[in-house]
């Protein structure tokens, strides 16, 4: 189900989403599928993603650029239900990190 309010809005091609969500997840080969699968099957709009192992590599940090204004609470509640997700928070500073990656990708 597309969000009708956002549907009419033409996103700029450079959009990194309306919010950045920061996750700490268990680091194993299936965890990306769990996160991306959730976005796909619940029709959440995912604009940007970054993932790096943390500390000794048993956990990873993930940064997600999402385009969900109305459903951000629902998105976070769904993310918290995933067993491999250890922490979820909105992180406005994540935008800067994405900007830096974008510079590199340009």
């Amino acid at each position, binding site marked *: 189900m597309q969000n009708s309010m956002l549907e009419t809005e033409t996103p700029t091609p450079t959009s990194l989403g309306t919010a950045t969500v920061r996750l700490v997840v268990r680091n194993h080969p*299936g965890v990306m599928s*769990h996160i991306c699968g959730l976005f796909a*099957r619940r029709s959440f709009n995912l604009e940007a993603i970054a993932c790096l192992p943390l500390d000794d590599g048993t956990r990873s940090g993930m940064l997600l650029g999402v385009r969900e204004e109305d459903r951000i609470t629902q998105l976070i*509640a*769904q993310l*918290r*239900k995933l*067993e*491999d997700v250890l922490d979820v928070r909105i992180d406005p500073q994540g935008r800067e990190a994405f900007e830096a990656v974008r510079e590199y990708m340009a």
Partner: protein
Amino acid sequence: MFQLTGAELIMRLLERQGITIIPGIPGGANLPMYDALRSSKIRHVLARHEQGAGFMAQGMARATGRAAVCFGTSGPGATNLITAIADAKLDSIPIVAITGQVPQAMIGTDAFQEIDTYGLTIPITKHNYLVRSAAELLDVIPDAFRVATSGRPGPVVVDVPKDVQNARIELEDFPEPGKADAPPPVRDEEVAHAATMINSARRPVLFIGAGIIASEASEILRTIAGRTSIPVVSTLLGLGAMPDDHPLYLGMLGMHGARSTNMILEESDLLIAAGVRFDDRATGKAAEFCPNAKILHIDIDPSELGKIKQPTLGITGDVGSVLRALAPRLHSTQHSEWLDRVNELRGAHPLAMPGAEDLLQPYGIVRQAAELIPDNAIITTDVGQHQMWTAQAFPFSWPRQWQTSGGLGTMGFGLPAAIGAALAMPDRMAVCFSGDGSLLMNIQELATAAEEDVNVKVILMNNAHLGLVRQQQELFYGRRFHASKFHAEPDFAAIARGFGVAAYDLGESTDPRESMAHALAESGPCLINVPITREENVYPMVPPGAANRDMIEGESYAKQYA
């Protein structure tokens, strides 16, 4: 210190979880587990299709409330399990499916019977695991049970490569069995707020569902309803939580509920939604559901609060614990004005059950059978008109009496679920009300029923149609019938006998009631074929996508289109 293989370790850990029966089918990739199962205390039930094994596990879990296990091999074994796993996800049923996988060295090579079980089951499980070493089993198996039973229950898949099953591991001790996490604490200020809402409501309705059954809250629900005189409506999966003959019980709401039930909800000023997820079959067009009501929503799954309807107050918690905390704060009330109105609507728009006295008509089959079926029997259905007739007409009176595929609506659910229920509760009868379309989808499990000699009775409402499809084509597709009539009509009684199952055909009986009574009195599995009118519809009905107030009924619809 002792040594065992990964497969042996799995069996020990399952025994320690209290598992005594596992339905499944062996194959190349899970043979080490079957080898270990031979010397285990666990009884294996050989299903005839993995979907059957999955639904048997569901039947056990739905009957007992405890997690049940099923086995399948890699590749086709896993894909055949998928429907039953997805069904468990949508209805929040705790099952642990353990699949064999090709050896790790061959994963990713398109090996014989290799399929990405892990990837395939991500969207249909609460959680899943691909086990990478025998040592990991020590964490994974208990954790699988913890996840399946904690919070909102659901299915878990554990995929075990063959080399992990064969690996040897040295142990000092077994890990503790996995058990459900404690539910979140009940918060006093939330309960106080909820109590104020309920105490000040003038036209409250309790809207209850599967969460009441899962949290074993039907007793406290009955207490609260009785003390506050608040009428209760139930979803399809909540049937049994309130006894059918309770004066405050209004039955099922939604697509096939009584018109009065949906009308009463329209007038309500407070909806106390307890253990429900606002499924569209219950709410109709969600935006127009209970337009005049504030909503108090209690659910163990925080993502359900506000998913479909924004509640005035949402409480994350075990619904039984929340209701128990709430009860002492609720005023004892009569709500006489509201109940007068409720009873007026009930009198004016009751659920009509034409033919309830006739054993050869749908409502009659359900009502007459109900009189002959022992009170402690478990009732399952398949999916279609017969399911809705059973939901409407069977006088359910206790939680876990009723098993049906609500969320996924899976034809083929009923027979293997009944077998699972009968296996889990061998002193009880399990009765499956089925349709001739649905029964064919897992009819091979009659062989399992015969082999295990389970006390399962299949009551087949045989209309030679995919009846609910035919009904939709009649009502919503201008009577353009297509692919909903069976031109070949199998002799189900003969088929059942062919499987070694006793069979009765009420169409050929001079005294159908006597035949039904006789069939239900015998022990062991049997099939009762009941030919019914081919063009019967289930009423009332909310057209898919419409608001619940826009229900159509037999005659009114006929008049409108005459």
